[in-house]
């Protein structure tokens, strides 16, 4: 992996905007934030593929578009396959001299959790295995938001969605979240990372690294959703930060399937209740439920610390 120069402060991010304001994302939706930063990092020589989902419908109501870079939406389950085709075309056209071969063109797919971990998973796995030079960014709002908050494989344990309702017998999702970033890492691609828009420089640098590798990269970004997670739109970044402060979301990266780092160490952890109690989708959880989740997170922290070889995520200190 060629070492890209990394950003140290937000002032180093390019001033240019490639996602126009005036799109139709919900007030307080963090997809806009994520994509805005992503496009600043990627720059104008970038082709974007977006599967069906909130980002796609909200940014491209014909005859308008929020995208200042070439952008394509094809369907829900195939962003990775479409991006494979785009990348192959750029390669072939550049090799044949039909497109300027000296110009580096980034190919970026930006998909939701449904379009990535569920219905689009096969296409994603194929793209990773074939080694296309595509950066795949997953904005994970932990449900099918575009169709109105249905459960996905990325929905967390016990969360309410419209298809995991809180009833007399069943209360929320019965299964834990699919560990997609690790499943992707198992493909042994050059770069995999998790990121959080509350840690914007960390996120921007991960985009930068992802774009610098010669092969596929995958950035899994948590995206609090005001509508689906049931919180006041002003609290998106706060909740995102709480996710990392409680270790419900750990920011890590894996380079060349060798070097594993937790990029945002948390010496003193907060109890998961701070994250959970801030969101309406967890309203029905009892203190006992929350303790169950806390124990699960404790184990996860232990596992991550072991992988790093030292304590990067500390104990819960209230």
């Amino acid at each position: 992996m060629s070492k890209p120069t990394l950003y140290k402060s937000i002032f180093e991010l390019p001033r240019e905007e490639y996602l126009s304001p005036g799109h139709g994302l919900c007030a307080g939706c963090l997809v806009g934030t994520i994509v805005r930063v992503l496009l600043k990092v990627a720059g104008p020589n970038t082709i974007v593929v977006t599967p069906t989902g909130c980002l796609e419908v909200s940014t491209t109501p014909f005859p308008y578009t929020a995208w200042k870079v070439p952008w394509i939406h094809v369907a829900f389950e195939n962003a990775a396959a479409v991006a494979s085709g785009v990348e192959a075309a750029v390669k072939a056209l550049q090799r044949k001299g039909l497109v300027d071969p000296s110009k580096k063109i980034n190919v970026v797919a930006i998909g939701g959790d449904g379009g990535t971990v569920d219905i689009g998973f096969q296409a994603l796995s194929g793209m990773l295995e074939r080694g296309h030079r595509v950066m795949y960014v997953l904005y994970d709002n932990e449900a099918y938001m575009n169709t109105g908050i249905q459960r996905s494989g990325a929905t967390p344990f016990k969360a309410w969605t419209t298809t995991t309702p809180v009833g007399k017998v069943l209360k929320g999702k019965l299964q834990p979240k699919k560990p997609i970033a690790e499943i992707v890492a198992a493909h042994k691609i050059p770069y995999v990372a998790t990121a959080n828009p509350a840690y914007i420089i960390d996120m921007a640098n991960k985009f930068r690294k992802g774009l610098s590798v010669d092969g596929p990269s995958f950035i899994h970004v948590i995206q609090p959703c005001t509508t689906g997670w049931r919180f006041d739109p002003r609290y998106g970044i706060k909740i995102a930060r709480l996710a990392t402060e409680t270790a419900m979301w750990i920011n890590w990266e894996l380079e060349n399937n060798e070097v594993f780092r937790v990029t945002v160490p948390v010496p003193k952890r907060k109890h998961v209740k701070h994250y959970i109690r801030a969101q309406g989708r967890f309203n029905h959880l009892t203190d006992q439920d929350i303790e169950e989740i806390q124990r699960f997170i404790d184990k996860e922290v232990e596992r991550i610390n072991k992988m790093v070889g030292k304590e990067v995520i500390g104990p819960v200190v209230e």
Partner: protein
Amino acid sequence: MSDLWIRIPLTSNYAAAYAAKDVDVDVVAAYPITPQTPVVERIAEFIANGELDAEMIHVESEHSALSACIGASATGARVFTATSAQGLELMHEMLFIASGLRLPIVMAIAARALSAPINIWCDYSDLMATRDSSWITVIASSAQEVYDSIIQMYRVAEDPEVLLPAMVAYDGFIMSHTYEPVYVAKDRAPILEYVPKNFKNRYRLDPDNPITMGAIADPNWYYEFKYQQVVAMRKAYEVVKKADEEFGKRFGRSYGFVETYKVEDVDIALLTYGGLYGTVQEAVDILREKGVKVGAIKLRVFRPFPYNELFNAIKNLKHLVVLDRAITFGGVIEGPVALEIATLLKFKSLDTNLYNYIVGIGQRTVTESDIIGIVDHVSKLIEKNVVPMESIYWGVRE
């Protein structure tokens, strides 16, 4: 002219692969399925031997094959894919998006029956199920026609007035796996003069001129997008014709929309498509030797449906027998081409009697004697003055 070509034995599958090579495709994304597989294998060999400079995407499914073709075509590449049956069904969703995005993708189809029960042999159920996908659809009857039609279809699909994808189908196994002598280009330069690469003439994903493709169109816009496809398909009618004529002028081979065989002096003709046309022609000769005057008609282009040429081919007939190789379950009549022709007869006020025979389903063998049997059967109906208001399932065990 002949110094342009070498004549070699090829199956229709290999003819398809040669055509893709000779139009210098940039990206191929395909997934193997019987009986299409040799197309993919041969293209892989062309690339491995340096005979074709293209990116081959070894996708993990046909859904991704067409998705990748869509991405590559949208970026400006000339792309090719091929499939059959289940693969075509898995692509189904993408067929409509490829045409809706107005991408000039060309695909070969080794026609095969659809599951269940699984059957790897020929019929045209797979192709007919794509009817409303807004793809230009050609059905070839020989390996030479496969080769020539694929080349022609790049010219049609990429025409700025058209910009629709095109498929070229041929019989699975019966053609895909049988060798015929085929003229292929010695050098691709004259082919590329006929189908020059013109990706700069169309919208594409280009960082120097960013556009948004695949936006959401609400009820106030969607209808116009679809109507533009209607207009494009109507234009394609003319463009297909011109492309074929120009091909004929340059290379000495052309096919038209329909082909007729010994129909000048007949009251009755048999119409079919694909490789079966050859069998029907043979049967016509045998019958004529016995003094039975019948003719044969081949439908080569299914979409856009060549109503003018077909009208001319059938207008003087008293009786038209349509041999269909697929079933549209629950239709007024159950042969998909017969259904089209019934519409044509009605709207052109022809009083030709229409008889629809379903044949060759799941590659149930159809020989000359079956065709002779059908003519015999239909002659008896004519004698009795009976025109059945339903399809006849030739040879089926009820």
